[in-house]
């Protein structure tokens, strides 16, 4: 009689019920969420005939219908380098430059704001906080006018033009105030004792910056890197404006892919899907490597604010 199983307490039962319900709900949601990506992947392997005959299937209808046709020529097409790798390179270097500059600027600016005394610090911070409320859209048209005027008056052409355009794509994105404040808030949370004791040991600003502050700021840096990377990689409006009238070789991948959307473009199904898969690869790889850090970092922004 004593060997009968202990009855589960009420709270244990509730917890098990909760877990079951949430598991089922989330399983359904996750399948729905994964579906468009699976559709993209499956369709990119379908042969042209299969695309016409079996549009209702996610994957090719039989083993013989699997094909890599749509992926052909992404690197080299007709003996010349294809657009695809160029678009990817454009996106890659401009994104990396944006990320690196953003992190460096945020680090040194936040350091100055938190650890160095100077006149007008309060006004500077107040100004930035106020500026956050100013919508960037007001500056779009003048930025573009400025961009065009400077280019015309300096007669920038050829490769110079390419770098000039990319300068205008990269630099405006590097001074995001939100990222800077994120870094400043982190620096402000470093105990003053650590910095003071380092100072009394004779450490200069450079040493404090590189040996104490930067190593501590790793997780915040990571967060800014991830925000900036996805933001810059997926940036559409501004690069589209600047690159609109240029050679298609100069496009970033995000801008270039607009050619497969909208209007009459819906017929190039296989190639569009294969291109998407190809363009998504670097992002997905970065996501898989960093997803835990990314998600945990993002989760804390709601608390830090």
């Amino acid at each position, binding site marked *: 009689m004593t060997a009968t199983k202990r009855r589960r307490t009420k709270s244990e039962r509730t917890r098990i019920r909760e877990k079951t319900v949430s598991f089922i709900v989330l399983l359904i949601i*996750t399948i729905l969420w994964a579906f468009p990506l699976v559709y993209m992947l499956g369709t990119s392997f379908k042969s042209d005939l299969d695309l016409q005959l079996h549009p209702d299937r996610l994957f090719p209808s039989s083993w013989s219908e699997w094909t890599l046709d749509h992926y052909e020529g992404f690197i080299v097409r007709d003996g010349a380098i294809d657009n695809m790798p160029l678009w990817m390179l454009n996106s890659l270097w401009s994104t990396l430059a944006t990320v690196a500059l953003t992190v460096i600027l945020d680090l040194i600016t936040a350091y100055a704001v938190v650890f160095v*005394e*100077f006149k007008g610090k309060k006004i500077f911070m107040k100004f930035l906080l106020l500026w956050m409320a100013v919508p960037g*859209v*007001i500056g779009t048209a003048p930025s573009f*006018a400025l961009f065009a005027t400077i280019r015309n008056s300096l007669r920038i052409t050829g490769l110079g033009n390419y770098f000039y355009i990319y300068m205008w794509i990269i630099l405006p994105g590097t001074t995001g105030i939100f990222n800077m404040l994120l870094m400043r808030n982190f620096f402000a949370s470093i105990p003053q004792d650590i910095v003071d004791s380092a100072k009394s040991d004779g450490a200069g600003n450079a040493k404090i910056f590189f040996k104490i502050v930067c190593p501590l700021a790793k997780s915040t840096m990571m967060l800014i890197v991830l925000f900036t990377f996805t933001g810059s*990689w997926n940036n559409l409006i501004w690069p589209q404006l600047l690159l609109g009238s240029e050679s298609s070789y100069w496009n970033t991948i995000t801008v270039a892919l607009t050619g497969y*959307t909208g209007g009459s473009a819906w017929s190039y199904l296989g190639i569009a899907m294969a291109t998407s898969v190809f363009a998504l690869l670097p992002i*997905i790889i970065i996501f898989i490597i960093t997803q835990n850090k990314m998600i945990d970092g993002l989760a804390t922004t709601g608390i830090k604010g």
Partner: protein
Amino acid sequence: MEIEETRRKRERAKSKRRQNLLSLALLSPYLIIFVLFTLIPVVMGFAFSFMKYNPYNGETNAFIGLKNYLNIFDFNNPVTKSFWNSFGTMLVFDIVAVPCLMIIPMVLAYFINMHPPGYKIFRAIIYLPSVVSITIVGIIFGNMFAGTKTGLINSWLGTEIHWLAGQPFHGDTLRWLVMLIASIWWQTGTNFIIFSGALRDIPKSLYEACEMDGGKRRHLIRFVTLPNMKSAISICLFNTLIGYLNLYGQPVVLNELDNAGVLVSPMMFIQKYISGVAYASQTGYICACAIIFGLFVMLLSTIERRVMGERRRSRRRTVAAKRYLADRDFLKTGSLREPDFEGGTHDSD
């Protein structure tokens, strides 16, 4: 003594000057880029809005006062009409989309916080679309909802519905539905993660205390969960609101031939009129439109901050505990009153 004093004073002044110089050196890169690429354009935007301005032809530039602003309210002007039409369509979409993008992530975060087996995988997959670029979202959803028989959804239904066709307010409901679905799929992730972080952070003891006092699940949600998520809700609402007021990508990538050129959001309007040299003489007018639109965005975001009581949320836990204690008596007696976590009145103590 006196010599010592002056020496010290001088040294202090010297160190102060050095600090000022150092800070200038550290701040200048940020400041220069900020001023050149952010501040000056906005100031210029204000200046242009009072001018007839053409970047390609300086001779016609002139100060014309408020004429651009008056033009915005002159509804016979076709450009003005297209501006207000784009504004209207965007607002209607936002009224539907923003609540969806708050509630769905919140519900999902509530479920994920029960930590079912494999919740990390669920979390990752729900977040995954957030890193996909809008053009790829457009390619996927545009082809799923393609208007011909070869579209996935049409072939499932056996129909030939032109999902993405139609003019604003004239038979394009389906197009906006597809945009809504795509937006939910694309952007649920970020808010979902922020909400789940906020949920995880709520002290367990508060729930337990509420349970001890006989709180049911709905009471737990109402008196513990929601008040404690206030700062996360505020941030997400702010970001989502601004993001969707600046709606651009979705309508640009999800359209058909008959409405590819129709401007359905102010960002599309501004983008179109800046990009062509043909409209260069209208730059001043476009700047005025951008300012009107920008002021509207500012107004809404300010209202949002006021309502959510952004400024006073220090000592969150103490405040939460106090609020809970205050609410408890009402739980016991069963006479429930409206919890005033929206008003933020409790925060003042």
